[in-house]
């Protein structure tokens, strides 16, 4: 495109020193987001970033937009208030696997079902970074950390499955190192009217280095990234020799030559029924083998905010008596001489 964009990345840099560990995946995501926002026409002052607490949640400090670094787990609730107060804003939620899925799990699933107009970016590094390395709700079972010296006993969430189970209208997954894919997902989330949820795999090189090696390593990644693209058969592998079929028993990975290309599932994120999206989410549980990346689900449903506005408008249409005196009058009064 040759359109002049009004912003450059620098316009979105707050000037505060960025304080992540050198090499942290958060830097990459920060750059992707700043670059992406600079491509938009949307005025800078209309972006609001709300985060909780965690390394990832420092994000708003580095964005030259409105923002709040709130408290642990509560960003989806606070952001809901922002979005409902001013529908003109683009409200981004920045959260981590601990912030968003551990302490903040409830607010997250309720925001998803309500379809508030939020863009939720969950930086999943499968660890608590800020508190120096305890297991999180996405850590693999058996993970040894200081609070689980003999291995974690927790069975992890699959954030995509959880979001789908919570009636999300937009669910995607991407990975820090793949900036183009990240940009694509950001664009789609931005365009989605409703709650958009993106799980972003993010490397914590200090406490959980190489957790996503299978998806980023030069020699492993082609075998393990399953890109979901609408209208295309779900195939992957260095030579696209692998594919995904969906049937009476859920989704399965097959060799394309074993089933023939016609049996391969054609991806369609817009299916009203989330059953297939859910099935696809079960192909991986953490990045321990072939893992789908892309948009699992993207459907339209009324947003909470739009419904709220139309109820208020309808009420105002119907009842124009809006002074306190009117209120009291309707309640009933009497007079003492």
């Amino acid at each position: 495109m040759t359109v002049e964009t009004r912003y450059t990345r620098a316009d979105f840099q707050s000037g505060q020193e960025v304080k992540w560990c050198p090499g942290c995946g958060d830097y990459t995501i920060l750059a992707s987001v700043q670059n992406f926002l600079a491509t938009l026409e949307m005025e800078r002052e209309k972006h609001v970033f709300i985060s909780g607490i965690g390394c990832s949640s420092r994000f708003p400090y580095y964005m030259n937009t409105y923002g709040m670094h709130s408290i642990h787990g509560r960003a989806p609730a606070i952001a809901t208030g922002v979005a409902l107060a001013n529908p003109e804003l683009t409200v981004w939620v920045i959260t981590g696997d601990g912030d968003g899925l551990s302490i903040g799990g409830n607010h997250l699933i309720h925001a998803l079902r309500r379809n508030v107009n939020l863009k939720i970016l969950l930086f999943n590094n499968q660890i608590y970074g800020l508190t120096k390395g305890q297991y999180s709700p996405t850590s693999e079972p058996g993970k040894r950390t200081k609070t689980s010296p003999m291995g974690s006993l927790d069975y992890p969430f699959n954030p995509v499955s959880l979001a789908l189970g919570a009636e999300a209208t937009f669910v995607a997954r991407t990975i820090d190192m793949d900036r183009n894919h990240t940009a694509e997902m950001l664009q789609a989330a931005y365009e989605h009217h409703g709650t958009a949820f993106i799980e972003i795999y993010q490397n914590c090189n200090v406490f959980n280095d190489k957790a996503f090696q299978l998806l980023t390593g030069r020699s492993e990644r082609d075998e393990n990234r399953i890109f979901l693209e609408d209208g295309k058969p779900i195939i992957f592998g260095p030579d696209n020799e692998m594919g995904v079929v969906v049937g009476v028993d859920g989704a399965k990975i097959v060799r394309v030559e074993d089933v023939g290309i016609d049996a391969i599932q054609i991806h369609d994120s817009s299916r009203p029924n989330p059953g297939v999206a859910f099935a696809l989410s079960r192909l991986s549980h953490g990045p321990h083998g072939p893992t789908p990346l892309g948009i699992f689900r993207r459907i339209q449903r009324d947003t909470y905010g739009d419904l709220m506005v139309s109820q208020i408008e309808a009420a105002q249409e119907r009842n124009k008596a809006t002074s306190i005196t009117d209120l009291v009058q309707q309640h009933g009064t009497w007079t003492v001489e």
Partner: protein
Amino acid sequence: MQEETLSPPKPPEKKDRVVIRFAGDSGDGMQLAGSRFTESSAAFGNDLATFPDYPAEIRAPQGTLAGVSSFQVHIADWDILTHGDEADVLVAMNPAALKANLRDVVAGGLILVNEDSFDSRNLEKAGYDGNPLTDGSLASYHVMTAPMEKLTKIAVAETGVKGRSVLRSKNFFALGLISWMFNRPTDPIYEWIDKKFGTDTPVGQANLEAFRAGFNFGNTTEEFHHTYEILPAKLPSGTYTNITGNQALAWGLVAAAKSAGLTLFLGSYPITPATSILEEIARLKHFGVKTFQAEDEIAGVGVSLGAAFTGHLAVTTTSGPGVALKSETMSLALMTELPLILVDVQRAGPSTGLPTKVEQSDLMIALYGRHGEAPVPVLAPSSPSDAFAIAMEAARIALKYMTPVILLSDGYLANGAEPWRLPDFDDLPAISVSHATEPNGPEGVFYPYARDEVTGARPWAIPGTPGLEHRVGGLEKEALTGNVSYDPDNHEMMTAARAAKIAGIANDIPEVEVYGPDDAKLLVVSWGSTFGSVRAGVNNANRDGYPTAHVHIRYLNPFPRNLEEILARYSKVLVPEMNRGQLSAVLRAQYLTPTVSLSKVQGAPFMATEITKKIVELLEDQS
């Protein structure tokens, strides 16, 4: 109807005040009977105060003590302050209602009983061994009985109402009988029935007929010669409405938003006895208000904080358990210095406690229930209608000082009604608010933590405003820039600045007024919904020759600036509270005043007599 007993009624006994309590099973419609009686008394021009008392939140089995529901109304021909201590008249629809309420009836009071319900099954459920109507145990009362169920059945026979529904109308029978006894106008009742059910529906007709039957029963039955007349109250002239604390609070918030030119945003999670504020405001969408029923209390205050950040007048409403849950977010509101009103309609604690009963035991958590040094202003209304003014005042302070504010109401205020002389709504105190639109620093820099010289408030720049982009958060802020700062001196300075901002509000609120004679040796200090009982108790004491002064505090943090000086004037300071002495402890800590605490923790308001008794005791004690 027994025509043959017709006889001319005795002339009505004149009384200047009477307290009537309707009590029955929670299914018996006592709240309805009580509130209808209240309305027709209001229409008649009496002054009044009410106190509905529900059982536990859940419907209890019929006929048991746990299931008793009551509604008390105090009507008078002069300005009254409380719902009345003891009942002059008790309407008892069943044995349990009698048993649960008997202790509150004045000796010699009138007890009106639905005799049909005093069968062995109900007596047993209520835990009676014998039948109090016949065993002489009610000898010190004036007991009257009416076969309310039997007569109701007969009255509604023609209306088409059938089966179990027939007895539903018995509350209207009782209402009719009491209306006759107290000379209430019947039209307001007829009109209400018509409006509510239509007089052409079976239910409407049944209620009407039952009411008439009760009224006529009084009129026609010889036994019921005992009628009262209460003259219209000498209320100051003006226009009145009858209002509960929760309603007044809701309206006050709406009025404050209007006055400030802001949108009202209420994020809340239902909890007794606060829910009806949310319900009231949810009805007012035509005022442009936004209400949000959140997934829990933490989200309730969270969405509100988000709305505050975005420029709305943000409120969250709850009761004790919810206050506990909102504590962490309140602390964030304090650190981000955003305006936010937390309404706590107190109930009896701790834990789930007695959720439908009143208490004032959240003062300490309101003042101190946040980690770190975290002062916030705390206000409390003194009566249902005062909740309107206090709500506006809470909004004014929150907006002017950019701070979260806690408003401590309670279950008694919240559900109790009183006639409210309407202020001139066009002349309400203006609340001026401006969102920042321009940089306030050198070279176009915006300082989100620059403070107003007078108030100490920081500017309120809302998302969407070009050029003022900034970040707030829970980490300590650098003065001016609001950037994160770990500097030791900055932390001390900011902690002091936050405290000073709240303390400084003392200069912006009215001084307290001392009520009572100049020669008083004893000062009574109260707060919240005890105002009425305490004032009445103080009046009694003065009448009985015990000169006593009274100060009622509506601002609990900071205290009014003249309070210290007033406290110092009295040799004895009595602090009656529906808790174990919380305000008392705060006054001691702040002013080293040797207060005496009068504590009542029974899930029920003070009686004026309890206050008077304690005053007398203290004044007679020369030690």
